[in-house]
């Protein structure tokens, strides 16, 4: 029984530590809360890399959340806040990087590959299509004349 309790306690403690970071911030209104949620979901934690800063327990993510909260309180726009982060941590912190000379491949690469692949398959299919019996039987007027001409020649 003791063992069971110990195991249960262990499982519980793991479960509680798996929860995402929760900060106690109070917002002016629901709109501001929504913007906070949106921004912390869109910005990436520089340290943990594959988590957004809303989800991360890293100290740096907590600092950035605090900074976003402060800037929202100051009435800065989403764009200003994102620019602030990009100025310090680079384009890396955005899950939706801006479209520019460095990122166009990232934005359009997958769609480009898909379209290219579809076109390639299309070309192959058209080329491989075997002529049907009907295609073989149909002669153009020109071919008909030529055939008639050849047949006539043989008769002579």
């Amino acid at each position: 029984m003791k063992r069971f309790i110990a195991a249960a306690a262990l499982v519980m403690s793991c479960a509680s530590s798996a929860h995402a970071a929760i900060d106690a911030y109070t917002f002016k209104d629901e709109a501001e809360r929504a913007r906070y949620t949106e921004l912390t979901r869109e910005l990436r934690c520089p340290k943990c890399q594959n988590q957004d800063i809303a989800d991360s327990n890293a100290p740096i993510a907590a600092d950035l959340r605090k900074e976003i909260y402060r800037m929202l309180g100051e009435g800065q726009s989403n764009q200003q806040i994102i620019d602030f982060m990009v100025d310090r941590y680079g384009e890396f912190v955005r899950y939706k990087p801006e479209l520019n000379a460095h990122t166009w491949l990232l934005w359009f690469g997958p769609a480009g590959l898909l379209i290219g692949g579809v076109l390639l398959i299309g070309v192959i299919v058209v080329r491989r299509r075997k002529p049907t019996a009907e295609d073989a039987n149909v002669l153009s007027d020109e071919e008909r004349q030529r055939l008639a001409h050849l047949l006539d020649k043989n008769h002579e």
Partner: protein
Amino acid sequence: MKRWVLLIPLALFLGLAAFLYKGLYLDPSELPSALIDKPFPEFSLPAVQDGKPLTRASLLGKPALVNVWGTWCIACRVEHPVLTKLAEQGVVIYGVNYKDVNADALKWLKDFHDPYQLNINDEAGSLGLNLGVYGAPETFLIDSKGIIRYKHVGVIDETVWREKLAGLYQGLVDEGKQ
């Protein structure tokens, strides 16, 4: 169909293989700094030792390493002897004591050695934030006008110094002499 068309898949495969091979040797945890070739951020913070106010102007005049460290940072302890050695060779090193307890920092500098010409007390992490620091140790190389020229994330060891920083630092020193 022309013969060369058959070579296209092979060429595509080789291209992809070259990309992936290069990717094997990239470190994804190393981010390019957004601050390269930008001025070191303005700040107004006390010194670790005597609490005297320091500003950006305190760092100007000579090319230098600006090392972000903390007593809580285990890797900084590894790096410390290397910094000490560099300081003995005459390399100018400034410290940013990042999110640390000042008493702990003083004890560290007393117990080990103090390679820093001056040490900025960034207890709240505001300068660290403006520098885009996401972990310690991080080291910035600034020129005599306070422009950030290079950033190294992680421990500076002999190899990193020799292969990456030494040349750049020497270049900046020579630039100043001309």
